[in-house]
Each structure stands twice: as C-alpha cells, then as structure tokens.
C-alpha cells in the first residue's frame, strides 16, 4: 500500500485528448492502415480510463484491469482481421487508400 498523488482528472483528461486525436486520425487520414491504427489509439485511450478508475477510483478493485485485458485481446483480434482485409483490398485494387474503397467493382 502506497500513497499515490496522481490526480484522477488529469489521467482522464489525457485519455480524452488521446481519444480525440485518434478520432481525428481515423476520420481524416487517407491510408487505410493508418485509419485502423487510429482506431487502436482510441481503444488504448479507453484502456487508460479503465486502469485509472481501477487504481485511483473511489472503490479501487481489479475488475477494471481484467476488463482492459479483454479490450486489449479484442483489439488485437480486430487489427489482425483489419489488416487482412487491407491486404486483400490492396491485391484487388492495387491501392491502400480509403478514397479508392468506394465501389465493389474492380
């Protein structure tokens, strides 16, 4: 048991800013890979929230950390399938830009 002086609102603010940077990246970047990675950034910032509440919240317990482990696993599964789709799309269309993903025709 140690005393921690990190203020909870600062951690939440960091996570909120990271989430918004991820949102901006996902909406504005052209490369499909970077869009997927921005989604990962958003998930990671949510993890910061979960861990912060689980350690610094009013009633600290480890449930938040277990949940963040599940989030990390699901994020890894999502990024694997996402990159597989990007690779298939690249072979199909010879491009990995989000702008080119607008029709199903070759």
């Amino acid at each position: 048991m140690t005393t921690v002086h990190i203020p909870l609102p600062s951690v939440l603010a960091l996570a909120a800013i990271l989430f918004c940077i991820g949102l901006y990246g996902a909406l504005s970047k052209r490369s499909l890979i970077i869009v997927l990675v921005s989604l990962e950034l958003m998930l990671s910032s949510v993890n910061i929230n979960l861990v912060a509440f689980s350690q610094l919240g009013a009633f600290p317990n480890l449930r938040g950390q277990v949940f963040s482990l599940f989030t990390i696993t699901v994020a890894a599964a999502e990024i694997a399938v996402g990159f597989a789709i990007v690779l298939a799309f690249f072979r199909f269309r010879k491009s990995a830009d989000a702008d080119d993903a607008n029709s199903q025709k070759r």
Partner: protein
Amino acid sequence: MVHFFSHGDSLAFYVLALIILLSAMLFLQFRKVIYMALAMGAIFVGCAALFLLLGAVFVGIAQVMIYAGAITILMMFAIMLTNHEATESVSAFGIRKGLAALGAFLLAVILLFTIRATHWRQSLVVNTDTQHNVDKIGFMLFRQYTIPFELVSLLLLAALVGAVWIARQTKEEKQD
C-alpha cells in the same frame, strides 16, 4: 496545482503525459506512413509506462507485449506488403479534414469540461504491490471470469483463421 508537482509520482505522470501527447502530435504531423507507425509505437510504449506508474503491472506488461510488440510489428508488415512508399497528401485543409478536426475538437472540449465539472472521489492509498496485482488478476480471470476468458480464446481463434482466410490468394487472382 502547485502541490501536485512537489510529489515524484505526479511529476513523472506529467512528464509521461507530455511525451505521449508529443508522440501523438508527431503522429498527426508525419507525412510518411512508416513514420506514423513508429510514432504510434512510441504512444503505446508511453501508455505502458503510464500503466506501470499507476501500479497496474500486469496490464502494463501485456500492453508492451501486445501493442508495442505485436501490433506495431504487424503494422510494419502491413505497410511493407502494401504500398510502402505511401504518403499522406500535402493539400492543406480539405472540407473533410476541416469537419473531422472540428468534430474531434468539439468532442475534446465537451469531454474536458465534463471532467472538470465533475467531482471525482479519489482513493489516495493505492496497492502497487506487483505480486498482489498479478496474483489477484490471475485468480479473477480463472475463477470469476472463466467463461469470458474462454470466449475470448474462441474469438482469437476465429480471428486468426478468418485473417488467414481473408488474406489468402484466390485462384482467379493467381491466373491474372
């Protein structure tokens, strides 16, 4: 605000937050896709350091292994297998980028104001013992959360098989 900086751990937190936000800014600034991937790796390592600082040892190490290790390398492979010379357009500010920036900025303002307006009750005494953290998470995963744990393993298997199935070369593509 001044007395926050007088403690070692909160000073470390602010330095870490600065590093993470700087890497995120670099991520948005870079034009080459491969540099963006590197900046993202830096952000993930920073998040892992933050978890360790908060005393969440297991999650911090898992973050290093899965995000900073596996996902960053997977990112590099995906970039190398597709158009690895790809750059973001230099065109200053299209309508799409403007709207995206406006939306993200508005969301950030709303979130920050809400965080500021809420009164957070914080526990000042935190258990940062490594042994305790890892033991308890193990017990929780295998006693209380056994079924979700097994379901996640099923999901991982399905994702693995699905990824291989989606990314494989079909017969008609080989003939081209």
